[in-house]
């Protein structure tokens, strides 16, 4: 598990550099990626469905990114993109196309469906994180007024 989490940190940091993230943001993005993957692994090893694990990890990455964005006064996407990298179904997209091109239509369909489901889990996790942070902010403003 430690090797996997380290690899997720390397992957997130690598993509942050690939996407020209400012140096101070690379470490934060890598941390978000490592924590997200650690949660995903922990949940899946505890018997959770991989899609539920992806949703929970995306929610964590989203919350961390929103928090870091407020802390550093930067766009949340600067942290979300590297942080979400270990969870995105990039390899599945490619494998689905390769399966289709090599005549394995059934496998291609299964992989394409998996891609969509993982994508939905990530999108819902990130959207929920944004909504929770916005609601928490609105609640605080309401309490002050």
């Amino acid at each position, binding site marked *: 598990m430690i090797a996997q989490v380290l690899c997720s940190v390397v*992957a997130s940091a690598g993509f942050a550099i690939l996407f020209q993230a400012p140096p101070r943001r690379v470490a934060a993005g890598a941390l978000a990626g490592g924590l997200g993957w650690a949660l995903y692994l922990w949940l899946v090893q505890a018997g959770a469905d991989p899609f539920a694990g992806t949703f929970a990890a995306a929610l964590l990455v989203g919350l961390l990114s929103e928090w870091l964005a407020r802390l550093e006064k930067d766009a949340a996407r600067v942290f979300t993109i590297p942080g979400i990298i270990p969870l995105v179904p990039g390899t599945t997209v490619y494998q689905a196309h390769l399966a289709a091109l090599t005549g394995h239509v059934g496998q291609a369909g299964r992989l394409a469906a998996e891609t969509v489901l993982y994508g939905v889990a990530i999108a819902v996790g990130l959207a929920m994180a944004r909504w929770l942070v916005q609601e928490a902010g609105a609640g605080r403003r309401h309490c002050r007024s």
Partner: protein
Amino acid sequence: MGRRSPSTPVVPFNNRIDNQIALAGDLGALILRSDGDLRRVRETISAALRAFGVPGTDVDVSPLGIRIATGGRTMYTRRIGAVSRNLQRLSAANALSRAIAQGMSDRDVREALIRIEAMTDRYPQWLVTLAGAAAAAGIAVLVSGAVAFFLPVLLVAYVVEVALLVLGRLGLPRWAEGMCAGAVAASVALVLRRCGLALDPGMVVTGGLVPLVPGILSATVPADLLSGAPASAAVRAAETVGTAAALASGVALVLSAHRFLGGPL
């Protein structure tokens, strides 16, 4: 930095509003071209227009472009060409958006936009290439669950990244670049297997192509659908399918040729 003052407009009144709409639109275009999300682009343009004091505007953002209208009349349209994910520009645009909200002058906003557009890459090419390869190797370990894939995938991804740098100079269309990258990855993986260094060529090729596969785009499609932007989802889905199909075609071509020549798969 100069402060905006209602008594000292930078340009005459009507031109000043046109100029401010153009500034807000250009800021949005900068964020959109750096792969900022649509909701964020719309919010940034609207916030900038509010800060400038431009009333009653209607902002329409899609992955293809930006339109700003006021009183039913289109005041600004900008088509967005190729998107290049650049978090440095995104970060700088975010800082500029905050400065506009605090009253930055129109002239300073224009200068800042020019500065951000002219930003050069922060990291040297060798580091970016190495980072891409290391990221690919990391993802291969996550997908396969085996640390043994790290080094072979690092090597394949590095060769693919270098090949892409060379191909980039030839000015090939994106689909051709993708096909070539897939073909290079498959060729290197087969050579590694022949040398006894690749455990599973399929996984090595998949890992090696990780920096090129549109993973984030595939996760953006459902996000666009959920936020009620089906046109945007369709555009991104088409881009995802096109890129992945080009990569897979290159790989399939090399694997077919290898099989045709009697090589083991």
